[in-house]
């Protein structure tokens, strides 16, 4: 007779050991350097891969279980939201432009993150980081999919979202987030982990997702709030992976410290420049504000990042120097960005507008050192002009920074009246930069950044028109052709919010929802 012996369930630590390191093996007939070809060239020295351990000690079986639960929750909320015409509950139709910015600017990055972590995971010889990268890679494709699903409901009613992925690869300002991630996934596996895993996920993610998600919650967007929270629930794990990887690399060999420091400096700045879009979203695009960009920078970077770098000091890692310049820019960043998008509203896939009087007051109170002095007069002038029928649409293309690809809109640190402008001569060509930090990044890796696909250059070279376009014909309108190439319809997907179909439709539909017709 068989005896059933009650087996003791394994504890978390033992289960983790069995399900990660326990599944690994040492190759016998292939050389390690052939299996892991990218692991040495960045100069990072690892002596013992087993020293890396996921502090959550999550194993694949538990991973599937909890991820399935997250999906079930998310989709039941999305169904309820759609069934109840939830889109009519947002504060006002201007809010939808946040959704457009998110879908075309951020969601495609989730997909690239999925590819990046799959690639990095494949390259690491250690089973610990390999399993953690696999999980993150799966998380990221889930984020891309759930965001597309959640926003597809808005796409049935509002403009500008219909071909977000096509836009992401072409529209001028979307090259900023796109090139940021392309830069990261074309680096080696260790730099990728420091750039996305650590600098982006650990240091900057709270500045990206928390404002978007709480902004959605504040503005009645239950769909975005729910996918946001669902994605965020993976984020604690991502942050932990980022921090553990950094500590692991630093503990393995003192020679790794200067390499890692350079990457942290570079990627903090690169990530911060991308957050320009978030700064303007927080200060201008949410009809109901959560907190200002400046406040969120102070809480999540200065306070929180301060604690982090204090903790990393024991490895010899210092707070990136660029933090000083970012502190000087925090009174100006969102205003300079919104002014630019107001100017280029004819060439974007979302609408812009001038803040109303109450919003101007809010901006003055949040930015007492800069708003009334530098930005209010500008806005009042533009508002006056618009009232006279001269709403200004800038049709001259701006010069772009070779590194971050943002137009040269930023002012000198400490002097908001002077445009910041740097240049470098490299192999008989001139390259332009928005800042000392973007210039330094270029100078360290010029062969990488000379290859940048700069939208403005590409338009001028004739590469952004639909096939068969003849720019020499009489009355050729380059902007019209560029919009066609972007798959955007002039007068519907672009221009000022005030004259938009979105505004008109939203008012009409909301009226129908609250009155008997």
């Amino acid at each position, binding site marked *: 007779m068989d005896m059933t012996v009650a087996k003791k369930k394994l*504890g*978390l630590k033992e289960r983790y050991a069995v399900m990660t390191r326990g599944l690994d093996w040492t190759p016998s007939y292939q050389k390690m350097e052939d299996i892991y070809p990218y692991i040495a060239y960045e100069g990072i020295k690892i002596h013992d891969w087993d020293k890396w351990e996921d502090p959550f000690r999550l194993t694949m079986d538990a991973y599937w279980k909890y991820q399935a639960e997250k999906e079930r*929750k998310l989709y039941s909320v999305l169904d309820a939201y759609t069934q109840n015409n939830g889109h009519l509950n947002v504060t006002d139709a201007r809010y939808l432009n946040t959704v457009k910015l998110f879908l075309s600017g951020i969601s495609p990055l989730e997909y690239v993150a999925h590819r990046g972590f799959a690639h990095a995971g494949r390259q690491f010889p250690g089973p610990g980081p390999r399993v953690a990268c696999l999980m993150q890679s799966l998380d990221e494709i889930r984020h891309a999919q759930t965001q597309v699903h959640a926003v597809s409901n808005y796409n049935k009613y509002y403009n500008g979202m219909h071909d977000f992925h096509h836009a992401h690869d072409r529209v001028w300002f979307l090259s900023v987030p796109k090139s940021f991630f392309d830069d990261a996934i074309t680096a080696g596996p260790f730099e990728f982990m420091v750039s996305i895993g650590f600098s982006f996920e650990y240091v900057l993610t709270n500045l990206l997702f928390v404002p978007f*998600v709480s902004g959605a919650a504040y503005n009645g967007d239950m769909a975005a709030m729910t996918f946001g929270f669902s994605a*965020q629930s993976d984020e*604690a794990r991502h942050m932990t992976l980022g921090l553990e990887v950094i500590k692991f690399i630093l503990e393995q060999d003192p020679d790794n410290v200067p390499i890692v420091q350079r990457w942290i400096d570079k990627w903090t700045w690169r990530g911060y420049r991308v957050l320009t879009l978030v700064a303007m979203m927080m200060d201008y695009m949410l009809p109901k504000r959560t907190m200002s960009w400046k406040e969120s920078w102070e809480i999540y970077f200065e306070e929180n990042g301060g*604690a982090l770098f204090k903790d990393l000091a024991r490895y010899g890692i210092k707070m990136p120097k660029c933090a000083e310049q970012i502190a000087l820019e925090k009174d100006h960043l969102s205003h300079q960005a919104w002014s630019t998008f107001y100017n280029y509203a004819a060439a974007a896939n979302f609408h812009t507008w001038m803040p109303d009087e109450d919003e101007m007051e809010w901006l003055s109170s949040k930015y007492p050192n800069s708003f009334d002095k530098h930005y209010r007069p500008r806005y009042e002038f533009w508002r006056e002009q618009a009232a006279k029928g001269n709403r200004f649409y800038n049709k001259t293309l701006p010069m772009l920074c070779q590194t971050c690809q943002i137009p040269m809109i930023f002012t000198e640190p400490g002097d908001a009246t002077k445009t910041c402008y740097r240049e470098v001569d490299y192999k008989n060509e001139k390259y332009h930069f928005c800042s000392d930090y973007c210039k330094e990044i270029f100078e360290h890796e010029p062969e990488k950044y000379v290859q940048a696909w700069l939208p403005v250059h590409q338009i001028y070279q004739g590469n952004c028109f639909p096939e068969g376009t003849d720019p020499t014909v009489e009355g050729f309108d380059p902007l019209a052709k560029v919009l066609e190439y972007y798959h955007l319809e002039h007068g519907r997907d672009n221009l000022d919010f005030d004259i938009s179909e979105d505004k008109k439709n939203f008012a009409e539909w909301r009226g129908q929802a609250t009155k008997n017709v």
Partner: protein
Amino acid sequence: MSTVFLALQTNEETRPIIEAILQDNPSAVVDEQPAMVKINADGRLVVRRQTIEEITGRDYDLQELQVNMITMSGNLDQTDDEITLFWKA
């Protein structure tokens, strides 16, 4: 000591967890934000399985917290009995 924090979604599943955290961490301060509860603590924060089980009257697996977490700050360590967030400096 620097602040560590844990942010959880506001819902019925997290209510007893937040209660447990406040019970176990005298320095913990709750900051309620739209749809989110952020708990700040001085240098160290512990989530204890046993306290949660005492409050809810059922078995609890700390890995369930994966579903409701939003963000955190600090180094982390998780065992069957505790999740700890901490700064060393």
